[in-house]
């Protein structure tokens, strides 16, 4: 088989989101060589895929590419993104869904310290210009979970006696015991898991929450996982690893199929626990759920999943934007059912509230 066809197939997979880089393509060519051309399916699947999510994409692309079916048009290329977000003062383009752009300069211009006022404002009630400023400030947050004691040990001035170091020192002195060496447990950051509700009722907060997620991933890339909950579960950690917030948000949003849809909190939480949480992602982690608790299904099912989550996680923090509003009481079915299983119940409606959330996470 022509090498060009195989490379074209790899390019097709890359366009579909499989990380089939040059190294893997080379491996595929070697594999096809070893197996023969009638085994291209396995040769490609074993070398080009790297996680279970890749497999259905691979199967579909394989059937289409080698099955003779062609795509209606050429591979769609993502439009090039500006590397750095435009500075605020340069005049950002107005938000399409926001209020009229004509009123924003006056709001910012008149207030003596716009930051301080903005901090208290509900994110849902901001004008486009204010929202840009809040976005910029959210990006500067640094959410990170507290440290835990690790199983890994390092030589140190205190702690338990280090037999290895002590004996090594003895050998250096001709076998005479001289001083005791000690070693201590390292401290490691706890894993932080953010579960963001992106259903219709949370639309106004979705952007701020994704940016909060981006700030968390940037802070500790290896220790943070971000998922969205809606009608289904989506892992967006990979997209959020982009350095630039706007590019990261674009990449993450592209992977979310159920924007502003309905809420099946219990189901998507269950999907999280089955596929990730139980296997270890939630174990010993600080799990933060951002949701208004608006559950269409039976609240008892949500309670059952939260009970599972609570048994796995170190701390469960529920962030409800309505919490910050005067006169709110968590009486809605889902929220009332979930509350007994949460260690913390905080508001997340304003910049100030998100800052307080950062403290809660750091304390947990």
């Amino acid at each position, binding site marked *: 088989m022509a090498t060009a066809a195989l490379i074209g197939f790899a390019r097709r997979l890359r366009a579909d989101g499989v990380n089939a880089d040059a*190294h893997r393509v080379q491996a595929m060519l070697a594999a096809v060589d070893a197996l023969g051309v009638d085994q291209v399916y*396995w*040769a490609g699947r074993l070398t080009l895929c790297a*996680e279970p999510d890749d497999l259905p994409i691979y199967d579909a692309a394989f059937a289409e590419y080698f099955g003779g079916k062609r795509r209606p048009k050429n591979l769609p290329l993502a439009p090039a993104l500006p590397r750095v977000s435009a500075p605020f003062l340069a005049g950002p383009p107005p938000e399409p869904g926001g209020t009229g752009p004509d009123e924003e300069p006056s709001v910012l211009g008149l207030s003596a310290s716009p930051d301080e006022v903005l901090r208290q404002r509900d994110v849902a009630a901001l004008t486009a210009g204010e929202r840009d400023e809040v976005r910029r400030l959210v990006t500067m947050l640094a959410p990170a979970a507290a440290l835990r004691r*690790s199983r*890994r040990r390092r030589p140190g001035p205190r702690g338990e006696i280090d037999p290895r170091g002590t004996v090594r020192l003895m*050998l250096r002195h001709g076998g005479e015991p001289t001083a005791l060496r000690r070693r201590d447990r390292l401290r490691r950051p706890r894993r932080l898991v953010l579960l963001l509700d992106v259903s219709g009722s949370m639309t106004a907060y979705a952007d701020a929450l994704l940016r909060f997620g981006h700030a968390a991933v940037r802070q500790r890339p290896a220790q943070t996982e971000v998922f969205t909950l809606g009608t289904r579960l989506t892992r967006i950690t990979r997209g959020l690893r982009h350095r630039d917030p706007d590019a990261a948000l674009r990449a993450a949003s592209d992977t979310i199929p159920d924007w502003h849809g309905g809420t099946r909190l219990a189901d998507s939480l269950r999907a999280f626990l089955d596929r990730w949480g139980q296997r270890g992602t939630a174990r010993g982690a600080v799990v933060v759920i951002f949701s208004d608790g608006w559950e269409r299904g039976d609240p008892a099912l949500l309670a*059952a999943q939260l009970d599972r989550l609570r048994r796995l996680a170190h701390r469960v923090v529920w962030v409800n934007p309505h919490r910050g509003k005067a006169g709110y009481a968590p009486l809605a079915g889902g929220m009332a059912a979930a509350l007994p299983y949460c260690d913390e119940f905080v508001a997340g409606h304003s910049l100030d509230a998100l800052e307080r959330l950062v403290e809660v996470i750091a304390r947990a």
Partner: protein
Amino acid sequence: MHEQPTSPEDLAALLASTGYLADDGLATAGYLALRLGRPLFLEGDAGVGKTAFASALAQATGAHFVRLQCYEGLDATQALYDWDFPRQILHLRAAEAAARAAGSAAGTAGAAGAAGAAGTAGTAAGAAGTDGAAGARIDADTLEAGLYDRRFLIARPLLRALERSPTVLLVDEVDRADDEFEAFLLEVLADAAVTIPELGRIAAETPPLTVLTSNRTREVHDALKRRCLYHWVEHPDVDREVAILRSRLPEVTDRLATQVATAAKRMRELDLIKPPGVAESLDWAGALITLGSPDLTAGTAAATLGAVLKYREDTDRVRAAGLATLLEP
């Protein structure tokens, strides 16, 4: 030394002769790993036979089998090698004692010399004393070299895998180890050699065939995955599971094996917290044989459900669905 398989089907046959029944994908993955000399990265639900595959592969190809179980805090002294410090100290003490016994005569002369030097004259005895000290110094050098001899080196799994060829190296649950270990593992796998400062470089004659398994508790670094062939191990279909049960448990009847495999498959469709793997069906069939039940009935299933379901919620769900529905042919 066994001959190397010449095709995926050939490898599947070799694996079957050891009692491991691999499907097409897994056999192809194993064959490619052998042919291309690439590590094999296996993922899949718990109990689908990832670990068993590695040991069967070793047996089928006539290779040694070395297993490294990963855990948090695993470091080079646990995975690669360590010096046997207590033995080194013991060796040192023994050498000291031997030197003291052998040189007791010279020792008295030396002591007399030292006393003489400290005291009045005794030039000849003093010279003998310095000779003795020089001899002891030479001894110390050889002694020190002897301390870092291969026999004081404790080979941990990775070094064992490099020292003996051919070897199948199983790095089990690599996601449980931390990032530092991953980086270190990558280095050892890339070179198929380690350098021990006191001894020099130890390289594998033929690089070990490495099988890594992961339960996806965290994402393994892409640099490691990129070097590997990736395969997701599926639950077997009913026919294959029956064949596995029959080959692993000679006592099991065809009827019982079919019943257990069918029930296990239906349980996997029930959306359980922990769907049973092949390991659980084997346990289940084993439990039924031990109890002497020739058949899987609602009664015997209820009594042995603990062998196959490990969560109370799952047990409740299966009971609610009705044990009888699991058993319908």
